[in-house]
């Protein structure tokens, strides 16, 4: 989820700042050429409307229609697609997988990363700190396709790294077709996703921790507060805002998961790794049911928008 998180992450915070400065516009030379100034923002607005907002509105319409790709006919079917969705066990499984994804990702990429960042920033040597941050980040710079293909090899039942490792540890009994077994496939993909993403959130937490004035730690040390206590009494409370943000961003990313599942299992075996994104893709582009795919998109829209609103609300409350 690296790019997605990057987008939302930085911006959601920025959002707060943006709205806080809305009332105090800078500039304004009052040259009487105000309208001409709109030209500066025009390209951005045109592109956003054409490629972001207009499709979004159309998607609502599609979700109440059924379309025939051969004839191009669209028929209004009311809530049919939504009714079908409510009775579709694979839709519910996909949603459940997204929830599982969220829970695990919040545990590892938010709380795990926070602890890890605190540990790293507690090290004495700056060189070591910056190297660790950088190395942990490397998987986030790689495309999810590369990660997915790499882990497909790692998880292979014959000649795969994971089974090889287990066998060399005398745990050969645990070896299996990780992505081929419906019981382990989702877990295997989620684990891969943690590998990919933990360094990214660790880096962000490290940046936040660096902003905590060092006098606080010095004072606490003088007071005889041990390093572990310092983490809990200074670091964690002071990066609370960042933690909230990371939770939201991670949740939002977990509901948009697509690439990592497509390149490893495409939702199989037996739909055990289906998530909303892949089920949308399969319904729309494999089964030609655009209306149903649009209805799934509406559900994704509602979930991610709700998360965004929660985020803005929290950010605003904080400001007051």
């Amino acid at each position, binding site marked *: 989820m690296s790019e997605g998180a990057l987008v939302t992450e930085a911006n959601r915070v920025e959002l707060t700042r943006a709205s806080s400065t809305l009332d105090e516009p800078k500039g304004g030379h009052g040259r009487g050429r105000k309208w001409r100034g709109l030209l500066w923002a025009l390209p951005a607005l045109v592109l956003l409307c054409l490629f972001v907002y207009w499709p979004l509105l159309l998607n609502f319409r599609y979700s109440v229609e059924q379309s*025939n*790709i*051969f*004839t*191009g006919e669209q028929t209004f079917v009311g809530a049919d697609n939504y009714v*079908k969705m409510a009775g579709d066990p694979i839709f519910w499984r996909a949603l459940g997988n997204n929830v599982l994804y969220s829970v695990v990702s919040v545990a590892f990429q938010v709380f795990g990363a926070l602890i890890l960042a605190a540990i790293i920033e507690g090290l004495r040597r700056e060189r070591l700190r910056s190297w660790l941050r950088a190395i942990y980040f490397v998987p986030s710079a790689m495309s999810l396709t590369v990660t997915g293909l790499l882990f497909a090899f790692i*998880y*292979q*039942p*014959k000649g795969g790294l994971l089974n090889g490792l287990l066998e060399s540890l005398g745990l050969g009994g645990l070896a*299996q*077709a*990780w*992505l*081929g*077994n*419906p*019981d382990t496939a989702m877990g295997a993909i989620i684990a891969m996703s943690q590998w990919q993403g933990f360094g990214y959130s660790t880096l962000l937490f490290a940046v936040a921790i660096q902003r905590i004035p060092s006098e606080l730690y010095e004072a606490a040390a003088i007071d005889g507060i041990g390093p572990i206590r310092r983490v809990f009494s200074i670091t964690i409370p002071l990066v609370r805002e960042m933690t909230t943000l990371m939770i939201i961003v991670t949740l939002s990313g977990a509901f948009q998961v697509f690439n990592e599942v497509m390149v490893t299992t495409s939702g*199989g*075996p*037996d*739909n055990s790794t289906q998530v909303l994104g892949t089920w949308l893709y*399969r319904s729309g*582009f*494999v*089964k*030609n049911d655009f209306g149903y795919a649009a209805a799934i998109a509406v559900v994704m829209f509602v979930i991610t928008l709700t998360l965004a609103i929660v985020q803005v609300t929290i950010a605003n409350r904080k400001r007051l």
Partner: protein
Amino acid sequence: MKNKIIAAIAAGGAITMALAGCGGGNGGTPAADVDLSEVTHEGTVSVITRYAGNYESFFEKMKADYEDMHPDVTIDLQQESDQGYKDKIKTLTASQSLPDIYFTWPGNYAEQFYDNGVALDLTEVIAPGTEWGDTMAPSALEAFTKEGVTYAVPFGLDAKFMVYNQKLFADAGVTVPETLEELIETCGTLRAAGITPMSFGNVDGWPALHYITQLNSYNVPAETLAADFKPETATFDHPGYAKSLEQFTEILTECTDSGTGANGVDYYTERDAFGAGKAAMFYVENLEFGATVPEGSQAEADGWDQFKLPAPSDAEGDTEALTGAPDGFLINSRSKNAALAVDFMKFVTSQENASELTAQMGIPSPVKDSLTEENSTPQLRESIDVLQSASSLSIWLDTVTVPDVADAFLSGVEGLISGARSPEDVMSSVQAASEQAKG
């Protein structure tokens, strides 16, 4: 209105073959609208194939040769990979801009184009009894015939065979099994001799469906299958389906090493294992023979041959059926140069060019007598003999059914392999998907 004169031909296995006076179906374009007999050799014909990559030279040669013969004709050729084609054709369909000639797989996949009026009725030029039709294997034409209307030009012949390693068979002292029960026994003997009986990987889902396709035609009577492959009459409630799934599970456990982990095992790695002489059997399409046993491979040195997946002794269905199907080409019913497009396809499927197809690409052609000793291996020729003598061709389960049912089978069998689902469980989700598809 048109009177339908339907004469069912009993030979039809997976597909009901019928003859009708005029174009039946739901909205297929009547042949009368287009005159295919008058050909003017000028203009442009657009073609899309799925033969990019290693296979693309054949159509390039066809284009060049045809343009040489008819200087006023331009063939606008576009070749895609397998997946690239699937994506592209959807876009072209949705934007109402299909080319004049376009590739198709048989079954529901092809029928949906015809049913929606974007594929031409070719009965008058290619049905059995016509000059062109008589050059083709009847079973290949049958695969593209619905209610008496033939709507596609068969192009490549493809069928599924069990290849086996003769040396490994001899080492274990086994011979080619005649029944499914014997096959299972053979696997036991091979295994006891320390030989992996069969390699199998199902990471993509379809390899298992090919076994199921063949077993279904053994266990389910042909008429029942035919009815179930039509969305309107489908029930999928014959007990033979569950039986096929059980038999497949038995093959999986008794014959393969992949077992319940097969969903995580790559098909092509397993195919290589056969080529390397590490497994005694592998279930494969005949057009893959060359890739399965490459020149200089261990399996080639050991000696190899093929047999049809044997039928269970208590089979209720057609034991002479063979899993396989021709690929084909559809002619766009909205084409301005339909007659010219048909003429080009006649040229492509002439006996000379059909032989060229096998020689160049290793793809057997449905054109009669196109396989010769120069252009093919004995195993390939023999497989085509088996194919010609098969009572009917069973089309791949994942293209013969509507997408929802295909999907239910695909994921259900994956669950069956991993042990999470019982055969009955799989069939009930297939039945549910089939009901849903009726709308």
